[in-house]
């Protein structure tokens, strides 16, 4: 991974119809866990192959086996129950976790899935986790007297999972914290929690942040103890570049260059323009390119087309810059 301008993806890919149906059937006890898992493996292989075909450098497993990014972890951790349906936006609903006891990790959560995905790929696959602040912030809380106590227990649990992924050989571990940009007054708590999560870790660590006001957290995000920030950017007029300009940092940046919640396909020229903007602030070695966010709400055809244009744009710039 020495070449500049690496391409990657944020996390989720659209689930094929057979997965959506199988998950619904499984929820009603009409198929077994094993049957569901077989289909999830098939869909994971499909997306690994697709990324290899497209020429993506740093892969994700596509999260065929996850629903909501917080609910998935709450189901695998101790201390959580799950609520009735609440609306997220439009006609989309999800079940929100409820902290009902001390939160802790009982066993490996994502390690087997990471091993499976990596076994299918010659290129590195990222380990993908949800961060402690987001887990706590996006859950109801019936147990903890303070938000801090909740966040810090979640931090210890996620740290154990980071250690387990590293032990399994995972070299790139992404811990998503989309909730952190909205409550600037809690940035110190976020930093305290993240210091627990990545403590003593040698793997390349990444955090993904999206859909917030980056201005309001100042350089707090840049103080997170990770190697790379993965930021939604298209949808927020590349505010993040301004942040890197104002607060020089040795961090890598994974820059969102296509919108994850819009049907419109960004052209290669448009993406090249965005990358050029970023190259005014960062060296090619420090810059990764990806979509703004997970792609699970897009159609497969849109996803492939958007990714293809990112790779096309990167290849054009690589040859121009002699990378």
């Amino acid at each position: 991974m020495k070449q500049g301008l690496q391409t990657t993806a944020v996390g989720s890919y659209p689930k094929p119809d057979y997965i959506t149906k199988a998950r619904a059937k499984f929820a009603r006890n009409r198929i077994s866990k094993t049957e569901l898992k077989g289909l999830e493996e098939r869909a994971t292989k499909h997306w690994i192959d697709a990324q290899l075909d497209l020429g993506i450098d740093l892969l994700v497993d596509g999260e065929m086996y996850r629903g909501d990014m917080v609910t998935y972890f709450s189901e695998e951790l101790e201390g959580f129950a799950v609520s009735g349906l609440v609306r997220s936006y439009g006609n989309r609903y999800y079940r929100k976790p409820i902290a009902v006891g001390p939160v802790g990790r009982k066993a490996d959560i994502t390690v087997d899935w990471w091993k499976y995905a990596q076994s299918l790929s010659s290129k590195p696959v990222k380990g993908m986790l949800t961060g402690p602040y987001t887990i706590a912030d996006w859950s109801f809380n019936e147990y903890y007297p303070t938000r801090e106590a909740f966040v810090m227990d979640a931090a210890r649990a996620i740290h154990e999972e980071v250690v387990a992924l590293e032990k399994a050989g995972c070299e790139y571990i992404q811990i998503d914290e989309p909730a952190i940009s909205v409550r600037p007054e809690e940035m110190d708590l976020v930093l305290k929690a993240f210091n627990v999560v990545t403590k003593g870790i040698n793997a390349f660590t990444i955090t993904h942040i999206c859909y917030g006001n980056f201005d309001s957290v100042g350089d707090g995000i840049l103080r997170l103890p990770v190697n790379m920030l993965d930021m939604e950017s298209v949808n927020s007029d590349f505010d993040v570049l301004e942040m890197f300009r104002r607060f020089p940092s040795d961090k890598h940046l994974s820059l969102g260059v296509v919108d994850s919640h819009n049907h419109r396909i960004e052209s290669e020229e448009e993406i090249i323009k965005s990358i050029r903007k970023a190259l005014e602030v960062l060296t090619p070695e420090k810059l990764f390119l990806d979509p703004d966010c997970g792609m699970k709400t897009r159609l497969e055809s849109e996803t492939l087309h958007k990714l293809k244009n990112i790779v096309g744009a990167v290849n054009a710039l690589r040859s121009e810059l002699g990378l």
Partner: protein
Amino acid sequence: MYTTVIGNYPKIGPKTRASSLRKAITKYQLNEITESELRQCENEVTSEIIREQEDIGLDILTDGHIRWDDPQTFFASRIHGFQINGLIRYFDTNTYYRQPVAIDKLEWINPISVNDYQFAECCSDLPIKVVITGPFTLAKLCQSRYYKNVDSMAKDLAIILNKEAIALAEAGVPIIQFDEPAILRHKDQIPLFSSLMSVLLEGVTTRKALCTYFGGLSGIEDEIFDLPFDIFNLDLVTNGFDLDSLKKFPVDKSIGLGIIDARNVKLESVDEIQSNIYKTCQWVDPEKIQVSPNCGLEFLPRSNARSKLRRMVQAVTSVKEMIS
């Protein structure tokens, strides 16, 4: 002393007809049902929710905002000059809305909520209040390409929403509640806010409420309580029960006491609710108190929202017995 809700109500719930709303919207999006079939389903859910609020024992109701995707696009998509863009987070919640962008001079076309009010009013003998997202908040949560900044857009929105409020007052709406959570994040802009409110309320002859949530009024109480509203709905959960704000409350106004946490499923105890009401009674005439959740109930599953409202009504009922 009265009980009320702040605005929206969970659209779907277990073992209710309401769950069919989710299917109906999907079918409508796939062109499998007509718009009037979707409207019919929304009407059924609305009347069910109104009945539910009556059964729980609330005094002042809303229609639950079943037809609203969110507080922004419901208005923006019915005002000339907006285009609806990509998803963005709604304040510090894990909910999202599609962000409206002003691409032309904004104009009021037709009444936005009058029909919805007329439908709701037929469903109940109790007063139904109507909520309008205020011009300051609407502007802050939208983008502008047409206007040179969001503040100049807010001025046009104040004129537009004033027309809407006048139309609602003429339709007989007993209380119009203007939601302005964004002012709590831009307290330095209180002078602009106050001038917007003057435009907004001009010639509106019904009772008017100002509702803020996701924070407290600390630091701007004097300016806020000076505004010509009849009712001030406060969030006394997010930053705690702020007695200092209450001490400044004007004697001739009604207070909306948002003391039930609509963002967490943990059920308040009757004692907790009652002690907050008693504290308020030291400063405000009980007749001028409206007890409610701190914000809309849609952040909760339907069953939790229901339990919280029942608990609230139970607490208020026994306080009323004690006082009389």
